[in-house]
């Protein structure tokens, strides 16, 4: 490739890292529009110029799906944005989503050579820029599928794992059907991630691109109830299945007062708003309770999404209660930063002990105790220990628990021979193969709780494994169909 960047590395290092244009915090807490507008073309090109185009390009290794980052940035420098996004899409079929929700700071950007002495290239912002450019200018051309294969593959769940697996298999020419229990496509991208981080329009456009590959998506279909995996194989003519049903069952802390009105799981709270549009009640029929004081329990991205949503629904005081310190919070730094800008209060080293209600069974307060950090636990993080006698009361009308999820047990309970491990997680090998031949699994169902990009990685690995499985199955079937020919071949040898 010709040298596109006339600047010397030392000159590139002098350019400051470009920032996204963002909605002012005071404005955005009053709407559900996207917080970040991304970078404009000028900033994107400036940022792309910072890339040192390293020969070993270790950023690519940092990406769980192996996007060829160096090449897409080089295409950007030629202003070939369609080429750049297609380069990304070779490895990652959902660039507009990943450009928004991926924790790049822990993946591609953390290993960026430039980051050793300066700030790393804002790879995520560049990804989003080219993906949005393509969407805005309607440049998408579906990849040409050269070979069509007879086998049907069932994908269970339309979240990031399922969508990615479906796209990869469709590109290989398989007949792919996605089964989704809800009435809308996207799984956690739909019901979990709020509009202000991932606009519905972006999700709809990205899923349209999956449909453009010939993938059939059946909504209102709960695998295990509407039909089982065993029936898919025995009656529906499917040759393989990928399970990507996520971790949809919410955990509760098990403290007194959880049955009170005004207490939600983060899943329910977010689903009411994100999927059912409860923020638009009464134009939409699903209601949601709100109060002037809201407490969200947890320190992950889901907790951040819930607390920031509550602010947008009109909470005057929105608190996040987390039992460890800031350093242990699993949420992305960017999300914590955005939350604080929006006036979210972080109550760290604090743990709820009970929720108090009034005579109408409505929550009116939460009792908490102070914690201190003790010895590291099995996760390697210092274990929070309660400080005796430190209980105190906070008045709140809404309590939202974001204390983790587990896989929904329906699929494991209704599929024969599927091995499960801790907390109902489906056991797979490194190729995402489950204990049953022909059935593969990935994403939170196999991990217990992870990120969008790791779910996509699993979907991609599984698609390759399904292709291998079906290819060898096909040749075995041909062998058994022509036993005489095979015997001749053996004899000839």
């Amino acid at each position, binding site marked *: 490739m010709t040298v596109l960047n006339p600047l010397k590395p030392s000159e590139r290092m002098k350019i400051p890292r470009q920032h996204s244009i963002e909605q002012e915090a005071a404005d955005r807490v009053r709407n559900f529009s996207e917080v970040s507008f991304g970078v404009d073309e000028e900033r994107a090109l400036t940022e792309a110029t910072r890339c040192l185009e390293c020969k070993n390009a270790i950023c690519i290794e940092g990406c769980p799906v192996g996007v060829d980052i160096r090449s897409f940035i080089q295409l950007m420098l030629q202003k070939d944005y369609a080429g750049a996004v297609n380069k990304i899409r070779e490895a990652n079929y959902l660039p507009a989503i990943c450009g928004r929700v991926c924790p790049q700071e822990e993946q591609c950007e953390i290993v960026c050579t430039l980051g050793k002495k300066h700030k790393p290239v804002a790879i995520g912002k560049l990804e989003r820029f080219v993906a949005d450019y393509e969407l805005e200018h309607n440049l998408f051309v579906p990849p040409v599928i050269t070979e069509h294969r007879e086998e049907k593959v069932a994908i269970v769940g339309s979240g990031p794992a399922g969508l990615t697996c479906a796209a990869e298999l469709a590109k290989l020419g398989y007949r792919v059907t996605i089964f989704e*229990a*809800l*009435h809308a496509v996207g799984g956690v991208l739909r*019901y979990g991630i709020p509009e202000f981080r991932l606009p519905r329009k972006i999700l709809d456009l990205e899923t349209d691109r999956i449909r453009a590959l010939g993938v059939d998506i059946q*909504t*209102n*279909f*709960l695998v295990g*109830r*509407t*039909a089982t995996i065993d029936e898919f194989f025995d009656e529906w003519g499917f040759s393989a299945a990928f399970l990507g049903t996520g971790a*949809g*069952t*919410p955990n*509760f802390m*098990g403290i007194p007062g*959880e*049955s009170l*009105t*005004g207490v*939600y*799981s983060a*899943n*329910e709270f977010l*689903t*009411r708003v994100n*999927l*059912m*549009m409860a923020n*638009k*009640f*009464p*134009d*939409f*029929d*699903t*209601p949601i*309770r709100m109060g002037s004081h809201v407490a969200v329990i947890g320190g992950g991205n889901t907790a951040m999404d819930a607390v920031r949503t509550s602010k947008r629904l009109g909470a005057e005081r929105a608190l996040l209660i987390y039992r460890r310190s800031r350093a242990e919070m699993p949420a992305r730094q960017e999300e914590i930063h955005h939350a604080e800008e929006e006036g979210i209060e972080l109550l760290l080293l604090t743990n709820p002990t009970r929720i108090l209600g009034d005579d*109408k*069974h409505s929550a009116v307060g939460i009792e908490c105790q102070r914690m201190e950090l003790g010895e590291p636990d099995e996760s390697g993080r210092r274990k929070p220990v309660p400080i005796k006698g430190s209980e105190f009361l906070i008045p709140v009308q809404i309590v939202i628990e974001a204390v983790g999820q587990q896989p*929904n*047990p*329906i699929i494991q309970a209704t599929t024969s021979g599927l091995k499960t491990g801790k907390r109902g997680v489906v056991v797979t090998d490194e190729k995402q193969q489950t204990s049953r031949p022909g059935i593969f699994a990935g994403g939170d169902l196999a991990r217990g709780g992870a990120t969008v990009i790791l779910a996509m990685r699993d979907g991609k690995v599984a698609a390759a494994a399904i292709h291998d499985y079906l290819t060898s199955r096909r040749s075995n079937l041909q062998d058994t169909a022509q036993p005489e020919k095979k015997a001749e071949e053996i004899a000839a040898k």
Partner: protein
Amino acid sequence: MFQIISKEDLASTISKFVIHAPLVARKRKAGNFVIVRVIESGERIPLTIVDSNPVEGTITLIVQAIGKTTKLLCTKKAGDHLLDVLGPLGNPTPIENHGAIACVGGGVGTAELYPITKALKDAGNVIYSIIGGRTKELVILEHQMRECSDEVFVTTDDGSYGQKGIVTDPLRLLLTQPHFGIKAVYAIGPLPMMKAVSNLTKEFGIKTLVSLNAIMVDGTGMCGGCRVTIGGKMKFACVDGPEFDAHQVDFDELILRNRSYVDFERLADERFTKELASTAQKVAS
């Protein structure tokens, strides 16, 4: 989209729908429910499947128009479509031969009780059914219940039909007279009714099953909105139920939880009633 094949009004506020939903019809068992969304801006509500015909690919739902969504649904006619129907959900009713049993239905709950009664009858039970309603019009499916019961008692709160009183009156009679030999009770209806039945059967130590109509969003175990306390433990009505051992259920808690959105429901209902009135006015003029 799920087409309404036929609609029949059972009372001024209760309608019976036969809906084309072949995949649900194929798998449905007594006790299962579906989640229905009528329109794009609508909410998801659980409705018990009253009957199914796997050959025709249809399911039967009986709906009482009590809030916005059910009122909207009841304005739909044969040929119209429901946007979403998901199911069959929930665990089917355990159908065993107990010997003699009492099946108790209150109001539109009789619609949910009917398929279970039919299945229990087919399993060889002697069936004493009690169906009640506030007033005569709200006593539904009497004919169908008679077909699958050995004896049927009817009660109305106002005495406009059958015996004046509530369903626990004939039930107490059945339980106090040993020759009926009641071994189990199935009760479906409003929560206060199921609570009253449960309190009564507890006195006699008779095993009782109730079907809990908690507020749901997804119906697949994802939101936890339908959490109920059973024997002191948290359960999700959608995936752990909807039927539970009545004697373990914290009815008072569920009654309070089901009032979580009353103000919202009233607002939505009033708005919808106004909309209907203005549409009717437009049509008239």
